[in-house]
């Protein structure tokens, strides 16, 4: 676990995972970045299978999901969901698993990965809350940060704040 070797070891781990994916998931497009992080782009149909493969890979099991985030590509009409993965057996391995979906609110949906990493539960709720992406198979897909009555998904780039203007309340006109 020598920290000075980390970039080199990250490259080695990235290449090993890249080879594994090339042989097992033909639809995945992989890019090994200069810092050793492996970017994996898969179609939504192959997402769960890829996730299972990575989570159980030997000897570099990517068994730690540290972050799920969303990216709104307004011009392309797409929303991307990014799963950031680490490996407890070898901290050098780092993968970002990316999947794209339609931006249209009624169509935006990807399969949930809660069956692979249970911790995805809360984080997918957050992406649903802020981007409006539906995760099929999620056990409890509700808003998590915003109130139940909130209208819209505020991290979408075309979101407009439509709250009525706030007025100052005084003792005289306060309504309990």
């Amino acid at each position, binding site marked *: 676990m020598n920290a000075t070797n980390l970039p080199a070891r990250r490259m080695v781990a990235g290449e090993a995972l890249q080879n594994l994916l090339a042989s097992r998931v033909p639809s995945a497009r992989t890019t090994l970045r200069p810092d050793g992080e492996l970017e994996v782009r898969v179609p939504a149909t192959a997402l769960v299978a890829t996730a299972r493969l990575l989570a159980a890979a030997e000897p570099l099991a990517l068994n730690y999901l540290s972050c799920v985030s969303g990216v709104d590509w307004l011009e392309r009409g797409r929303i991307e969901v990014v799963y950031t993965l680490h490996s407890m057996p070898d901290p050098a391995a780092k993968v970002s698993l990316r999947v794209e979906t339609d931006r249209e609110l009624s169509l935006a949906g990807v399969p949930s990965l809660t069956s692979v990493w249970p911790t995805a539960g809360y984080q997918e709720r957050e992406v649903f809350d802020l981007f409006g992406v539906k995760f099929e198979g999620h056990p409890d897909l509700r808003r998590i*940060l*915003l*109130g139940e009555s909130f209208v819209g998904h505020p991290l979408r780039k075309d979101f407009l*704040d439509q*709250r009525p203007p*706030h007025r100052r309340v005084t003792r005289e006109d*306060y309504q309990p």
Partner: protein
Amino acid sequence: MGVGRRRGRGNKLPRRPKGVRLVEKLDSHSVPEKSPLRKVLPGVFMGPVRQLFNWGRRNSLWYMTFGLACCAIEMMAAAAARWDFDRFGSFFRASPRQADFMFISGTVNEKMASRIKLLYDQMAEPKWILAMGACACTGGPFTGTYNVVPGIDKVIPVDVYLPGCPPRPEALIDALLQLQKLVGQEGLRAVPRAAAERAAERAAERGTTP
């Protein structure tokens, strides 16, 4: 204060030595110097009931144990040994029923606003609100974002605004003294009848006491 200075001499009032004033001044509303009352009531304060209430209220302002954000850290520091709010008769109460006022110490978002309103409604009259820090006053750096209320005065009435990001405990002490000044000018305020009825109705819907 307010009773004869000497004790232990039975019911007989002590003889007044020369040069001792009969009545101590509570403040400018006390019995005037030349009033005949001064001669018949030695050692007794005279004044409106309102004054007595306000004297008691402003010197024992208890506040809700309630923190929202980084400002709450300064509030805790102000309450702890170094700045010691207890000196002013103010300390944390863990129930809105026992609290006289509440620090709104931090950013208020839309989801929290309804909870703060509920806490405010649960506090007994008379009650005061002290908006602490830029966020509680105006929304601060988060004004204009999608989920932040631009100042708690858009939800409940505020009595003292304290700017700063966050304010130092010394500033908090000053705000408390301002609030004491305000409480000292309070009348015997009654809850407006309509408001009290509405609060009772809402409580009945929720199945709690108002």
